[in-house]
């Protein structure tokens, strides 16, 4: 029962994070919310017993990808005159 509540909670947050990262206008916020998504995914893997995958998701997905995305976002410029 406890696991089901945990799973439902994580899955709901997962959907919220996925939609939010597409919805927000600011790319920096989008990148950070994407990191949150990765970390929720990592919790889900760990709960299912796939600890190796969870570890990879935590280091690569939530760690390095977020840093690389943020590094890229800082160098983007909009082509507009206002």
């Amino acid at each position, binding site marked *: 029962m406890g696991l089901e509540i945990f799973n439902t909670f994580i899955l709901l947050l997962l959907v919220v994070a996925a939609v939010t990262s597409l919805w927000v206008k600011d790319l920096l916020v989008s990148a950070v919310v994407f990191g949150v998504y990765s970390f929720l995914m990592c919790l889900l893997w760990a709960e*299912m017993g796939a*600890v*190796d995958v*969870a*570890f*990879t998701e935590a*280091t*690569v997905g939530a*760690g*390095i990808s977020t*840093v*690389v995305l943020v*590094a*890229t976002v*800082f*160098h983007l410029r909009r082509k507009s005159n206002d």
Partner: protein
Amino acid sequence: MKLFSLIPVLAIGALLLWAGQDFPKWGDLASPASKSSVSSHFIAKTGVDTEVPNMVTAVLADYRGFDTMFETVVVFIAGTAVIAILRGSSIGRPRRKDHEVEAEPDLIVTNTVRLIVPVIQIFAFYVLAHGHVSPGGGFQGGVLMGASFILIALSWDLEKAMARFPIERCLFVAAMGIVLYGGIGLLSMLLGGEFLDYAELEKIFPVSRGMARYYAILGVEIGVGFTVASIMFVLYANLASEGRLKEGL
């Protein structure tokens, strides 16, 4: 237009949800993955063949060693591709925007990082070396090691990290990782086995066939760790400085 593109998105989402009903239940013993002869072979034989308690590591580095070797090559190619694309892409652009000024590294941040980085690096070695018995291995350990250098670059500036790990050395270490992996494979071929058939290494090391594979798995994991650690840092260094490799964020 936005509403129009919503229609295929919803249709594909509904199709995926509908197709998802065919998946076996989680932990179902009668699911094809649990019943197949391959998985029962791995479950029964991994401990006997390789002496490795963590089956995931044994399958990754030994039974599917060829696959993992070229995954490492893919990581290497990704790093070199980023360098090739970004080098020279920023010629003629101003280095800084007018309103930006040079900032001193923050005292609290740098001193915290000074404390944290050695811990991260020791943990990276632990994860790398303990891949046999606990979750972890070359990829995770390598990423942690690369992350420690990224942390240095984030808290001081890119030059500080590049002084410790210049880009040429990064590429050398990354190539050495693949050479180490392929070298262990070639060595076992020269000793009379097949490529990446680590058990043949018993002929030159005083260990049993199982333990020869155990140590060879550690060797190839170190190779993977070399490549992944340096390529992660190369990726960050190039993306954060638009290929200039100076100043960074």
